[in-house]
Each structure stands twice: as structure tokens, then as C-alpha cells.
């Protein structure tokens, strides 16, 4: 049985940097820890692992790793840790690296589970190779499997894709998505890439200056105005849904989400599959009426739930409610005044591009 995990940590490294975090983690699924570099994401992970020392409490899956008077060393904690660099032991083979973890595990991992992980990540052909010979992508796949060999209570991943090129990143993200389903432990995934968050995370922790600003489901966190302010031009929402219809003649598919349907490019999509779409706030415009004479494929009826204008940017952010989902739209302050937009008003959201992720 996996139990909820609780983390409360405090660390003062200098006058400029303080970490102050309190978290309750889901029993499973990937939680992305997202924020700019220097916001304390990596430090948080290292403190959970015990690699850095902070004051507070760490309780993972019912086991207390740190509390008043208790502080386990990293090797006594049941963690899987994937670093930015694979950090494989160059004097061992791939198999040797996996066995290094396996023989030291407190819980014995079943051979079937080992085989399953090896096959999921396609590292079987590499098993007898020396760890020093692997490419970056291969090494990182091995590092991920190695971290799981100890049957950890939590998997901590610190920007595992940061040192890889984009094709490699893509393939590892696919592997992670496959692994996600095979894992019954919480995963904390540190990244500063929005794309990685939207591709693999169920939940997201948004950090700024050592503090947690937002924590919740990806769809909720990204549609909040706080997040919008933090991300600026990169602000976007994520919609989840199923592909309900594919019109092959037009190469279009319907993505049905909570509150409506989006028409999207049908490339690589299958009927009935689960899909996630990301829509940038700057790709949404707003009109007061439905435009039947426009090329916009997606015009959704929406209600203005909230709006914010911090005056520094030249645009106004609208939070739009579409059924049970939310969209963010960046429009110019000029347009906002000309259309006399008010909270509560009904408008049409015109969506220029939808990226399927």
C-alpha cells in the first residue's frame, strides 16, 4: 500500500536564497517541479534525498526520513534518483550498474519487473556494454532503470533531459510516459521546460524564489492567473480529452474535452485515444459574435471569469470559462477597452493553433 507523502523543508543558504516548502504528494503519478533556474527546484529534490541538509520533516510513503532528531543518510532512504548527467559507474557494464542497485536494495525486485523495465526502455541490447561507451540518451535510460532497481518509495528526477538533444529528449519522454503507467510510486520531476511538464506531468508544483507558488493538476495550475503572470509570453493552458471523431478527408480530428470540442490536425491520432492539447494564451483572440466568415476552425463560446492587467505588459489576460475548462487569452489593452470587456460577459474565443502533445 502506498501512503501519502508529506514534506516540509526549510533551508537558508544565503541572504538571497531561502527554501521554504510544504508539500503533500499524491501516492503516484508524475509531479513536475517547475520554475526558473535558481528557484530551488534542485535543492528541494536534494533535500528530500538527503544529499543536502535542510530543517524540517520528510515522510515518504509512511516512512519518516527526517524529523526532529531523525535524519537518515541518503543511502538509508528508499529513493530512486536520476541526475542531470546519467552518472553511471564507468568501470561497470550496464548490467553491472543495474546489479549495483539491485544488490543493495532493501526490497528485492522481482525478475519479471526487471525484465519489464528493461524492455520498456529498450536497453536489453546494451546490457553487456560498458557504461562508458553509451551515448547520452542510452546512458540516461539506463540511469532511469538503475534508479528503479531498488524498488524505491519515491522517484526523484532532476532535469534528466537537460543534457540531451531534442530528438533524444523526445524519445526519453515517450519512455517515461510508458514507465509512468508501470509505476505505483510518486515521481518528482524537476524541469524548467514547459513542454516536458505538459507532456508527462499529471500535477505540477510551481516554484519561485524557494517557495511553492502553485501546486495542483496541470490543467488547473496553468489556467490560473498567477501562473500566467509568472510565465508571461509562454502562458498557456492544457486541455485533456479524447479523440472522438476523425475526418480523414480533411485530416482533422475532434478532441472532446470538459466543456467542448476542438478540431485539430489528425496526424498520428487514433479514434478513442486520450490526448492533451496545449494552447498558448497569445494564440487566442476574442470576439463578441460568432464569425462564420473566418478561417478560424475553433470558435468556442466562453464566459470571462476573470481578467488581469498588471500594466507592465501592454496586454490584458482574460481567463475564459468554456464548460468546465478554462482558457487564457492575451489581448491588447486597446481591444479590451474598445470591446468594453467585463468580467462575467459572454464572448467567443477564437483559437488560432492547438498543439497536440
Amino acid at each position, binding site marked *: 500500500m502506498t501512503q501519502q507523502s508529506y514534506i516540509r523543508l526549510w533551508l537558508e543558504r544565503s541572504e538571497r536564497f531561502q527554501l521554504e516548502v510544504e508539500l503533500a504528494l499524491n501516492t503516484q503519478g508524475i509531479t513536475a517541479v517547475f520554475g526558473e533556474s535558481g528557484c530551488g527546484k534542485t535543492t528541494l529534490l536534494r533535500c528530500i534525498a538527503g544529499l543536502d541538509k535542510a530543517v524540517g520533516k520528510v515522510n515518504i510513503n509512511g516512512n519518516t526520513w527526517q524529523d526532529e532528531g531523525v535524519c537518515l543518510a541518503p543511502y538509508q532512504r528508499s*529513493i530512486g534518483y536520476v541526475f542531470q548527467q546519467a552518472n553511471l559507474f564507468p568501470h561497470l557494464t550496464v548490467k553491472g550498474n543495474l546489479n*549495483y542497485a539491485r544488490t543493495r536494495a*532493501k526490497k528485492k525486485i522481482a525478475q519479471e519487473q526487471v525484465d519489464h523495465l528493461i524492455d520498456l526502455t529498450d536497453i536489453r541490447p546494451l546490457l553487456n556494454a560498458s557504461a562508458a561507451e553509451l551515448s547520452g540518451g542510452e546512458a540516461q535510460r539506463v540511469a532511469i532503470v538503475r534508479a528503479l532497481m531498488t524498488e524505491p518509495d519515491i522517484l526523484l528526477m532532476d532535469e534528466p533531459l537537460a543534457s540531451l538533444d531534442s530528438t533524444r529528449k523526445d524519445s526519453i519522454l515517450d519512455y517515461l510516459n510508458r514507465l509512468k503507467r508501470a509505476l505505483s510510486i510518486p515521481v518528482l520531476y524537476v524541469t524548467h521546460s514547459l513542454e516536458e511538464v505538459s507532456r508527462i506531468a499529471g500535477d505540477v508544483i510551481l516554484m519561485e524564489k524557494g517557495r511553492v507558488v502553485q501546486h495542483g493538476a496541470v490543467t488547473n495550475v496553468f489556467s490560473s492567473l498567477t501562473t500566467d503572470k509568472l510565465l508571461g509570453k509562454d502562458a498557456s493552458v492544457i486541455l485533456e480529452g479524447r479523440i472522438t471523431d476523425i475526418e480523414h478527408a480533411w485530416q482533422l480530428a475532434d478532441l472532446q474535452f470538459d466543456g467542448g470540442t476542438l478540431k485539430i490536425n489528425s496526424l498520428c491520432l487514433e479514434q478513442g485515444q486520450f490526448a492533451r492539447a496545449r494552447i498558448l494564451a497569445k494564440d487566442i483572440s476574442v470576439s463578441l459574435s460568432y464569425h462564420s466568415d473566418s478561417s478560424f476552425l475553433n470558435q468556442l463560446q466562453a464566459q470571462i471569469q476573470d481578467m488581469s492587467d498588471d500594466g507592465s505588459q501592454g496586454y490584458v489576460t482574460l481567463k475564459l470559462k468554456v464548460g468546465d475548462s478554462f482558457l487564457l487569452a492575451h489581448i491588447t489593452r486597446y481591444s479590451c477597452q474598445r470591446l468594453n470587456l467585463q468580467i462575467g460577459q459572454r464572448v467567443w474565443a477564437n483559437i488560432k493553433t492547438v498543439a497536440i502533445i
Partner: protein
Amino acid sequence: MLDSSDLSAIWLTIKLAFLVTLILLVIGTPIAWWLARTSSRLRGVVAAVVALPLVLPPTVLGFYLLVAFGPQGTLGQLTQTLGLGTLPFTFWGLVVASVIYSLPFVVQPLQNAMESIQEESLEAAATLGASPLDRFFTVVIPLSKVGYTTAAVLGFAHTIGEFGVVLMIGGNIPGETQLISVKIYEHVEALNYAQAHTLSIGMLLFSFVVLLLVYSQMNGKQMNRKKMNRKPSSRNKGAL
């Protein structure tokens, strides 16, 4: 060619070198590891003490060891209380002196190798459940393999080649403290140039082969994995 006293000097020298190398690898390991990882203020002091034999005239070192281990010296009184007698002019006196004299030749290659081990490798091992001692034996030592080979070879070769310290503390007792280098000196004093020549050419060839092995191994490894190794420090080269 070689008479029985020559052979006994060769045998004694090899025995001494083996023993000293073994002892040095054991005590050099923790010293090198500490020097490689500590941020203590004492680091500089310890590093300087370890390196002293590199710059000190061997006679100075031998002189102080002789005084310290002599019947009136502090260490000499200690060894006498322990029932070990006095060390000067015995084989074990040579062992102790050689260990001190060859210490930097073992510690420095080990330290270089250990400094080049990335902290992340050790952290990875820790997250995989390896305790500090476990990490040391399964990560640090295997990754310092080149350092160990170099250290062993240099320690061995340097012990074989010493003269000043040996003469000061060991004297010239056949079968007990008479080493090759001292024997050569004795031959020369007795104008036995032919015998001095035989031993000397042997030493020359031995030293060259040893260095050839060390440097060709270093170059090979450097080309294979540049990260894993550092060049031998210039101090080492200078002292050779």
C-alpha cells in the same frame, strides 16, 4: 660477475621495496582520500608534510630519523618500551625510513586519481543504497585504478633507488641493511668498477622500463578517457 653479497643485496632490496610498497598503499589510501576531499584548514599542512621528502636532501631526513629512532630519541625510547629494540641499523629501520621517504610518490598519484572522481558518482552510489565504506570500495578504489598502478610502481621504484636515507639509518650491514645502491657505493670505494657497473646498468635498465610502463599507460588512458585521469603532477616529474 655478481658475487653472493651482490645477490643478497639485490634480494634484500626487492624484499624491502615490496614491503614498503604494500605498507604505503595501505596507509597512503586514507591520506590521499582525505587530501582529495577535505576542506579542512590542515590540508595545506598535511600536504606539505607529505611532500617534504620530494625536496629535502635525503641525508637530512636520514639524520633526523637516526636521531629520533636512536636510543636517546623519543621514538627510539618508545620502540624500546614496546620491546622492539632500536630501529637504526636494522631491516625494519629501513622499512620505516623508506615508508616516510617514498610517501609522496604513492600519495600524490592516488590523490590525483581520487580528486578526478566526480562527486556525482558518489552521490549516485549513495542514492542506490551504498554506505560510505561501501562507496569507497566499490566506486572510489575501482575508479582510482590507474592511480594505484602508478602509485605502486613509483613507490616500488623509488624505494629501490634510495641511497642517502638508507645509508644514514641502515648503514652497510650485509644481509641486513646492505641494499643495491649502497653496494654500488661500496664497490666504487673499493675500485671494483666492473662489479659497480653490472649493478648500475641493471638499475638503469630497471628504472627506464618502469618509467616507460608508467608513462605509456598514462598516455593510453588519457587518450581513452580524458576525464578520468589527470596528468601526473609536475612535482612528480621533477622529482623523478
